[in-house]
């Protein structure tokens, strides 16, 4: 249960800088490992997401400023990668693999069960209680363990409709 996602930072709220104190120290510790600051972009975005649960436009601009890039450049990179959330999410984000190998083994049934049991109803939506956001993702690289699901930073193998309620119960 490592996720600290979805803490209610919505659009329109003034941006509190992420890179002060400990997060800044974590980022600066990475600089010597790469010949360019730009190479720290993906790690910096991960830090933002860990701290805030999602990556807002002002946060992209802050990352740009810290790394000597432009906001548009950072946004182009953020939108390339599917794991960066560009909107606030529920407290727990669930990624469900439905690519062919898992699809052959019932991943779509598992996904439907997750959407139903979590109360999310549809993909990308947050459940009314604010607990879950469910997204469909492409191959999670665990095709021998259908259906693999990632909850926040927890990788869970072999989820089936039958095990969905117990899985969700682990996340408050």
């Amino acid at each position, binding site marked *: 249960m490592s996720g600290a996602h979805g803490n209610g930072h919505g659009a329109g709220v003034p941006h509190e800088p992420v890179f002060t104190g400990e997060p800044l120290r974590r980022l600066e510790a990475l600089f010597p*490992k*790469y*010949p*360019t600051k*730009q*190479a*720290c*972009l*993906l*790690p910096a*975005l*991960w830090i933002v997401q860990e701290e805030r649960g999602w990556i807002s436009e002002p946060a992209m601009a802050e990352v740009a400023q810290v*790394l000597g*890039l432009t906001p548009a450049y950072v946004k*182009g*990179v953020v939108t*390339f*990668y*599917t*794991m*960066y959330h560009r909107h606030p999410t529920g407290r727990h984000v669930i*990624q469900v693999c*439905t*690519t*062919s*190998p898992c*699809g*052959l*083994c019932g991943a779509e049934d598992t996904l439907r069960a997750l959407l139903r049991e979590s109360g999310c109803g549809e993909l990308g939506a947050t459940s009314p209680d604010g607990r879950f956001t469910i997204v469909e*993702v*492409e*191959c*999670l*690289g*665990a*095709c*021998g*363990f*259908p259906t693999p699901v*990632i909850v926040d*930073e*927890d*990788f869970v193998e072999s989820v089936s409709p039958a095990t969905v309620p117990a899985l969700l119960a682990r996340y408050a």
Partner: protein
Amino acid sequence: MGWPHPSHPIEEPVLSRHFGDPAARTWDGWVARGGYEGLKRALGMTREEIVEVVKASGLRGRGGAGFPTGLKWSFMPKPSGKPHYLVCNADESEPGTFKDREIMRWTPHGLLEGVAIGCLGIGAERAYVYIRGEFTEPWRVMNAALAEAYAKGALGADAMGSGRRIDIVLHRGAGAYICGEETALMNSLEGKRGNPRIKPPFPAQAGLFAMPTTINNVETLTAVPHIITRGADWYRGLCKASPKSTGTKLFSVCGHVQRPGNYELVMGTSLGELLWDACGGAPEGREIKAVIPGGSSVPILTAEEARATVLDYEGVAAQGSMLGSGGVIVMDDTTDMVYQIWRLTRFYAHESCAQCTQCREGTAWTAKILERILAGQGKPADLDLLLDLADNMTGKTICVLSDSCAAPVVSGIRKFRHEFDAYIAGTREPVMAGV
């Protein structure tokens, strides 16, 4: 041993010997199992000697392309004052493939050792291991192992007391299949969109940060310590068919089999034995209909073709497909081939980086046509159109994602045309809502 199933007699566990054994994850556990012997030995060898051993072993890239590893290392320039980089491709995301994940989860030190030896083989002092963002558990395990390796002095400014510097940096991806393509991976590592690059320049000339770079797959590098300790002859001797394909290979089997999982086989083992013996064939009461032998990007085999296939680079090619990454996707007689091929094209449409026109537009268009067919709105001309689009998408783009989308469409229509025809003729119930 195999994983997560018990080992099967046809397996030859080398890399997978300690899968499922949590004690092997730690420094002490790994050393107790003979770990880091290879690195110690390599530190006493010249760069050229290391490359020669790897060349002589016949080891070929396990990521999909099968390029001879020693030869790749030999392309790296002589020392020139420029930094050289080794990049380990741990962005395993080819549908059907899940072997690198197990290597990192269970034997992280085995990979770190291989990466360190790789650095020595190409004259690099720093390596980056690019681990896909979704691999949360391998990420944690690898980080713990890396911290241990530094604490024990195996890595750093004075690796194993040799006076040589070997640094390894773990870098986390963020969700993009295309970053498994080596030049896209380099761009991603540099903090860019994961767009594949045009070649030349090749990575050995100007790769990561425009410096001479070698990129190797996780499985490839993990095999290297074994080759160093046990010798090239031993490795080359692991060969049941073509002498150009040596050693063991991890095959990930998924889909409609009784015992999915990873199987480590000597090159040249029969695919039929793997599927029908080791994996127990299709689930009870069903028959295997089709097999994609090398990850989702390679042409589909029928069950008969699969039974006749020898699992090495040459053997799978002889059946008109490719060994690829060794991800074997099995489909039984309940499988709707049209639906599965559509699902694959949707994957590629989702993952296209958007650079090349044919890929950006062609993958999405292909998926839309298949959706229409599945909705019962297909037209007789659609199959020819799909084949012509596939032709326009093959061999014309910077990387092969576009080709990979076309491959299952072409082989699917060729081998299972009647299933497409049934939707188009209206003799099969539509499975999708139309538009």
